[in-house]
């Protein structure tokens, strides 16, 4: 910029000044545009919560004895269905993979009241618009003898926990 200032007294002053003015104009525009983008991004960062206030994703559901063989028990508040056949036990999600309604237990498995998706006993889609089978969640036997579900970890459907 110093060079420009010196030259501005010469014969080509007006061209130089116009160029400088144009560059300043560009810089101003760029600055305003950049600030606009920055504030838009900051707003998105602001409204995206860092912490959520919902239930924990990992929790205990009780002792294995609470679920005798043959059980198909829905734990409503957790959106879970605990299935026990003999010594094998598993936890399926009851949140419909279509649009998030809670599926009900039906004779043949699960049925969704919202858009008519149907699932069999293992959560495999048998009808309706659901794109994926019902997830199976990781189930472990904690040292204190209680069953622990982690809804953040999905496992292959059909893989039971042997007691």
């Amino acid at each position, binding site marked *: 910029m110093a060079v420009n200032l010196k030259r501005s007294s010469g014969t080509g002053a007006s061209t130089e000044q116009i160029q400088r003015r144009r560059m300043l104009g560009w810089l101003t525009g760029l600055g305003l545009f950049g600030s606009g983008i920055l504030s838009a991004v900051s707003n998105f960062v602001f*409204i995206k*919560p860092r912490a*959520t206030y919902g239930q924990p994703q990992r929790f205990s559901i009780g002792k294995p004895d609470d679920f005798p063989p043959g059980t198909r028990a829905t734990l409503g508040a957790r959106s879970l269905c605990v299935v026990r056949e003999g010594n094998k036990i598993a936890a399926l999600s009851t949140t419909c993979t*279509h*649009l998030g309604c809670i599926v009900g237990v039906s004779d043949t498995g699960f*049925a969704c*009241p*919202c858009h*008519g998706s149907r699932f069999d006993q293992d959560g495999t889609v048998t009808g309706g618009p659901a794109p994926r089978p019902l997830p199976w969640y990781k189930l472990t036997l904690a040292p204190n003898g209680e069953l622990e579900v982690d809804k953040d970890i999905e496992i292959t459907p059909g893989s039971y926990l042997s007691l």
Partner: protein
Amino acid sequence: MSPAANPIPPKPGLLTALKELPKNVWNSIFRNPLPSNDLEKSATSFTNFFLHIHPVKVHKHSLKPTYTLGLGLISFFLFVILILTGILLMFYYVPSTTQAYDRMLDLRGTVAFGMILRNMHRWSAHGMVAVVFLHLARVFFTGAYKKPREFNWVLGVVLFLLTLFMSFTGYLLPWDQLAFWAITVGTAIAGYAPVVGKDIQFLLMGGTSVGQEALLRFYVLHVAVLPAILTLGISIHFWRIRKDGGLSRPPEADATPALEFSAPAATMKVAGPESRKTYGLQGLVRGPITKAGQVPDNTVFSWPDLFRAELFTFVITLSAILILSLLFNAPLEEPVNILHPPNPAKAPWYFLGLQEMVSYSAFWGGIGIPTIFVVLLFITPYIDRAQTGVGKWFAKERLLANTIFLTFVLANIVFVIIGTFFRGPNWAFVMPW
């Protein structure tokens, strides 16, 4: 009190001042008297803040009720009713999962006029969705989106989408079963959008499921963010009507009216005194606008014709909403039970077509087809550049465009009817009889 006789008017006494007080206060507010001549008629638009959005003169064709059906105005008046009743409801509403539903019951039971205010708000909201869509259909069928009104059409489509979003955010607020499950489903549909879907869903709900955070977010969107954007959008929409040369009309409407004189255009004069002086300002406005003395004059003064038509539309709209609200109560379902969606769980009627489509495929029904329809709406004025068939209902020249539009509309109506009457428990197909 004649200044001509005495250059310094005599100081009026206190008694005179008091006697003239009402008149002087009135005259200080309203400088223009009730119009008795054309000059005063034109001055109404300039001197009154609430009227200055109007042009001094308006084309006769724009005042034809059979052309516009008054749909744009009705939409606006419904919006006004919604703002006013909404502000009143805010005095009693609390956006909290533990209190919202109780507040609904209070509005029904204990708050004075609470019931009718909620009814008015609900029916106006339904009405606004319907009327805004009918307005959009009117503009389409009359080819009114064509040049130079392309941008105002785009703006109108945005306003229609905002209206839908407005009603969507509104119906979570009662925190009843319909509210909860409709928003669960609606946000899940957003989750199917490619790339950003899951983020949008998370941002809308403020978490992984619909709960207190979602209720607060929807409340803020519903009472602050969206009304502000909508108000701004409507203002620009109105402003553009004038800048685009008033409402659309067929070329014939601008033909020389059969007046007694048939002088050459150069010597043609517009009937009426002071015409040049009063609308000299309009000469500054670019575009196809009526310019005094330059084009044949098919216009009338806004006062009283336009204002009377607006007042009439307002009274009819308000009366209809009042009668509806007195006759029918806004539904309120059971309080939220996050364990059991109602079976079948149905959205309000205007989203039932969407819900029916979603039951076939979440992506195509909820994202794909609606997006295609909206994109088609947006680009229509930039694709359909022919200047023929503007200003006429169902013009022959626009058969193709009108057919495509009507196909989409009818398809949606069919889906709405199926969703409303032919869907039973577990969304199974049932006969309504």
